[in-house]
């Protein structure tokens, strides 16, 4: 008798817990955070490079940096501008592609970030990159222990504008 009452009480507590968890999950849909930095130095100061969200080879002249990520996933959306004269470090690290690797053929729009361009949303097409003045590049971030990531860059060298999108996986592209 007492055992049954105890069990019923446990079931109620579990149900309550599941209800609370379900509510938290729905609220958790807004886990992604957006940050803006006037200069790369500000982003460095905020720890975005040391924490791994922004690659350390972005041009030192990078400014107007906007970044969206969810700490519970490596997925990252970032926009930045830079001086076209200061592009050597970036160029050195990128691998140009004429066809997008499987993992990067589709990109979800950065949530709540209207600045994320249309040509980088949904099913991607290299021709649309070029039509907007951008070239496509990929960078693999191999990490056999913590999980590989692959980064898609769209760079407009002439006007010093860039975007990158990071997602778990590998590109399969060799340099």
């Amino acid at each position, binding site marked *: 008798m007492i055992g049954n009452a105890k069990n019923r009480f446990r079931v109620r507590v579990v149900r309550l817990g599941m209800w609370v968890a379900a509510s938290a999950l729905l609220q958790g849909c807004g886990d992604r955070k957006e940050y803006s930095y006037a200069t790369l130095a500000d982003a460095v100061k905020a720890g975005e490079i040391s924490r791994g*969200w922004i690659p350390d080879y972005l041009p030192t002249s990078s400014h107007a940096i906007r970044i969206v990520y969810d700490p519970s*996933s490596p997925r990252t959306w970032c926009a930045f501008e830079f001086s076209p004269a200061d592009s050597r470090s970036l160029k050195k690290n990128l691998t140009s592609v004429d066809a997008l690797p499987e993992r990067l053929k589709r990109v979800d729009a950065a949530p709540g970030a209207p600045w994320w361009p249309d040509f980088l949303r949904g099913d991607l097409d290299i021709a649309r990159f070029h039509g907007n003045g951008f070239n496509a590049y990929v960078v693999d971030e191999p990490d056999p222990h*913590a999980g590989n990531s692959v980064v898609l860059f769209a760079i407009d060298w002439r006007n010093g504008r860039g975007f990158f999108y990071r997602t778990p996986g590998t590109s399969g592209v060799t340099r």
Partner: protein
Amino acid sequence: MRIMLRISDEQGSTNGYRCPSSENAPSYYRARYYDSNSGRFISEDPLRFDDGWANLYLYVTNRPAGLVDSFGLSPNPPMTNPIVPFLMCPWCQQFVLGTEEMWINYKRMEEMKWIKGDKYYHCMGNCLATNAGPGGAAAAQVLSFLRTNVRSRITEPNDWRDDDKANKCGQQGGDCDKRCEQYVQHYSPGKPQFHW
């Protein structure tokens, strides 16, 4: 203490995290370690006689059903959560404490925001919740299932398996600091400052 490593062969995961075995590993209770084999802490209570108990190695004065000692310092009715004192059954108290551990680690993950550092907090939340007792273990399993296997499976189809591995590693309980730090020890770039 010898820690044995094993490689998980779970399908679909993209990482090489290794979860330390929990065999005979003492449980971490923040201030000291508890040996489940002997039912005693393996070091003296740092509060020594201040809490009024003569035996410095006992866990909750040998009455684990009614008391908790989450910090390894002194036996207390669980008071960290305002709901807990109103719950009569120890299992329910553990469930609430486990939920609290999961929430605290989620918030810490948000504060620390290391890329891929979420695996550490997945592991820690589950581990500390599991160490709270059977109710805490149930909380860890329910919350992790909903968060990772349901939500992340939809929102992060390329990442949820790695999170699931971290959850399962934490759910083995034991020495959470050691277990979870070893789990992400090869994390790059550089080892993050996980502690607070």
